[in-house]
């Protein structure tokens, strides 16, 4: 496992090469560096994994590379920490990441800024790997901010369009709200435990904190706020649909497979703190549930293919939070892995469709594409089946495990389960609505399928992986607490499998056979507008935060607080003008004032002598 340091270094070197060689290396070289560095990182990951799985190998591995800084008691070093959880994330990031890079090398080929694109992508992968491998929370925060930066840069990649820049800024500012809370949480955690070293926190937190006490609750709530911002959960979710302004491979890599799951990783990583705060953990479950329902309903009526997928991502991450909250820790990470596979597949397929239709993203202008685009069609079917959790695809295994665990939560269990099943039902409707609208019905447009070794192989590999990933076993068992191992009644399984299938049937009736038209949102204009704008959260935030802020700024245009420092400036300027009158360049005036001053000094000295 001594090669661990290579994994984040390789993409970083790729980034440096691409940045330093900007304008000097041509597309082929840039492709080789950009895709090669991530692929090499994936190879090193498998090498490390071989060591990790070899018999007798330790369950965790920590290495200090070099000290970063020390301030008072705080000693922060560049240290890497590998355990089952980190290794699972490494598989997702480097494995799915290299497939997406492979695909992106074809997708972005026509773009003028090919080198810049791969530079950002490599920097993103390096930052994400740093986040996952960090052995202390400060280094994790560095990676956290690094991926946020790359997300900003890549959403605004086509910066000539002001709308893209706006989307990038929105993503940056909204996640910043959560990041601030996260940073405060880190400081509090350091004050309480005196360390930010992750393995130490794991052992110290259960000893130092009382279960349900104020301190762990506050810290866990702050960490949760950071996770909510990064993972686009309510109420900090509004940036994700707009983030689709970036290139499609970016959406696949950052806004589906890796970065948006960083919040899930953070909670799983600091689970020992969360376990001491059961109220916060319950809040995690409910936030996840509300998010998955809200995002699911919003996805029902989007017209942009990528926005449907964005809301669906939000909803699936809602399932992961839901799983964390009900204590199904390993299942959550398992769903993270399967979701990364099938959602990356769906996004890349959507990218192929968008390219084939000459950058058309509106699903109302699509239809009947299954004959012209067979490979994307079948990949989309696989992806949708996984998303809907049709047995025996990978999504089925992960989602059923989560629902089973939720049933067993004492107290709210069955209610949470019912919400999760309702979410699965909606998921079925919106994903197959998308599938039927895009691939069935009368043919619209003249698709030209993008072909070649950069388009089909990554899709097919991801499709195959999505199908079989249900049988993968992630090495998270040794790290995360055990899940509830009871069995819910048999009928719950039947309902959980049956409802999504009914949802598919409804979607088929409505969108292929054009019956039951009353169910279509187009029949209800007000509801349609409401769902199209994602439950009006943007408008709400505008009314709550933006408008008051802008009004305040307008009222206080001549900053009142600023008056005080300005007074000092005006006073010194007045003194300056007064005294500069004396420097008039007249030598005789100088002599006269000098004489007068001398006389005054002499007279006063004499007077003091006399009296």
């Amino acid at each position, binding site marked *: 496992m001594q090669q661990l340091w290579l994994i984040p270094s390789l993409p970083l070197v790729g980034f440096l090469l691409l940045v330093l060689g900007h304008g000097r290396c041509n597309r082929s070289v840039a492709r080789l560096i950009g895709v090669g560095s991530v692929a090499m990182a994936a190879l090193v990951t498998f090498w490390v994994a071989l060591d990790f799985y070899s018999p007798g190998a330790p369950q965790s591995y920590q290495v200090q590379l070099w000290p970063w800084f020390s301030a008072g008691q705080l000693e922060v070093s560049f240290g890497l920490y590998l355990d089952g959880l980190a290794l699972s994330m490494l598989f997702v990031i480097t494995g799915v990441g290299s497939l997406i890079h492979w695909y992106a090398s074809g997708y972005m080929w026509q773009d003028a800024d090919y080198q810049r694109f791969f530079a950002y992508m490599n920097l993103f992968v390096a930052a994400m790997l740093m986040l996952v491998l960090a052995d202390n929370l400060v280094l994790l925060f560095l990676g956290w901010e690094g991926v946020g930066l790359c997300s900003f840069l890549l959403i605004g990649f086509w910066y000539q369009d002001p709308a893209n820049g706006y989307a990038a800024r929105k993503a940056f500012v909204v996640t910043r709200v959560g990041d601030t809370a996260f940073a405060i949480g880190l400081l509090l955690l350091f004050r309480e435990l005196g360390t930010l070293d992750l393995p130490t926190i794991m052992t110290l937190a259960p000893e130092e904190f009382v279960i349900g006490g104020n301190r762990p609750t506050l810290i866990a709530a702050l960490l949760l706020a950071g996770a909510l911002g990064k993972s686009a959960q309510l109420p900090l979710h509004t940036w994700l649909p707009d983030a689709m302004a970036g290139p499609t491979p970016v959406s696949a890599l950052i806004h589906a497979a890796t970065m948006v799951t960083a919040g899930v990783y953070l909670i799983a990583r600091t689970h020992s703190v969360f376990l001491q705060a059961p109220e916060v953990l319950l809040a995690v479950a409910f936030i996840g549930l509300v998010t998955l329902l809200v995002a699911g309903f919003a996805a029902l009526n989007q017209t942009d293919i990528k926005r449907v997928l964005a809301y669906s991502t939000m909803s699936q991450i809602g399932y992961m939070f839901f799983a964390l909250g009900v204590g199904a820790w390993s299942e959550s990470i398992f769903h993270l892995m399967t979701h990364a596979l099938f959602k990356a597949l769906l996004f890349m397929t959507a990218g192929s469709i968008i390219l084939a239709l000459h950058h058309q993203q509106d699903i109302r202008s699509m239809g009947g594409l299954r004959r012209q685009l067979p490979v994307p069609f079948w990949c989309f079917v696989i992806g949708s089946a996984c998303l809907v959790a049709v047995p025996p695809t990978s999504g089925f295994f992960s989602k059923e495990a989560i629902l089973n665990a939720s049933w067993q939560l004492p107290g709210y269990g069955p209610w949470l389960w019912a919400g999760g099943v309702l979410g699965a039902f909606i998921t079925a409707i919106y994903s197959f609505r998308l599938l039927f609208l895009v691939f069935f019905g009368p043919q619209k447009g003249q698709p030209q399928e993008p072909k070649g070794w950069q388009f089909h192989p990554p899709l097919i590999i991801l499709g195959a992986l999505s199908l079989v990933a249900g049988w993968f076993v992630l090495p998270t068992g040794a790290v995360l607490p055990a899940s509830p191992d009871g069995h819910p009644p048999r009928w719950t399984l039947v309902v959980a499998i049956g409802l999504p299938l009914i949802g598919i049937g409804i979607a088929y009736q409505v969108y292929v056979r054009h019956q039951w038209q009353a169910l279509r949102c187009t029949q209800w204009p007000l509801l349609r507008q409401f769902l199209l704008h994602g439950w009006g959260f943007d408008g709400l935030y505008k009314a709550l935060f933006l408008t008051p802020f802008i009004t305040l700024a307008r009222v206080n245009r001549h900053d009142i607080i600023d008056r005080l420092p300005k007074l000092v400036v005006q006073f010194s300027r007045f003194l300056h003008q007064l005294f500069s009158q004396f*420097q008039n360049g007249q030598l005789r005036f100088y002599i006269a004032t000098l004489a007068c001053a001398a006389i005054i000094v002499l007279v006063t000295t004499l007077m003091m002598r006399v009296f």
Partner: protein
Amino acid sequence: MDSQYIDHAIILAGILFCLGLVGVMVRRNLLFIMISIEVMLNAAGLAFIAAGSAWDQAEGQVMFLAVITLGAAEVAVGLGLTLLLFRHHNSVNVDQLNQLRG
């Protein structure tokens, strides 16, 4: 020396000093200003000599030597500057040389 002589000498030195000071203040020509400064310096020197003789101390004459040296140095520098000013501005009128105002 009697004390009345020292009174006379000091009064003479005071008159000379005031004449020099008035000269410095009212003259516009730089050369005359320097001559007036020389008068002031020598008034101060006279006061030293008178005081030294009144109290039979040698320091008065020592100080006068210092004053002469100072005067010589001042003239050397001052005349050089005056010469340069005249070359640059074709004038030694201090009222016209007022470009260094703030």
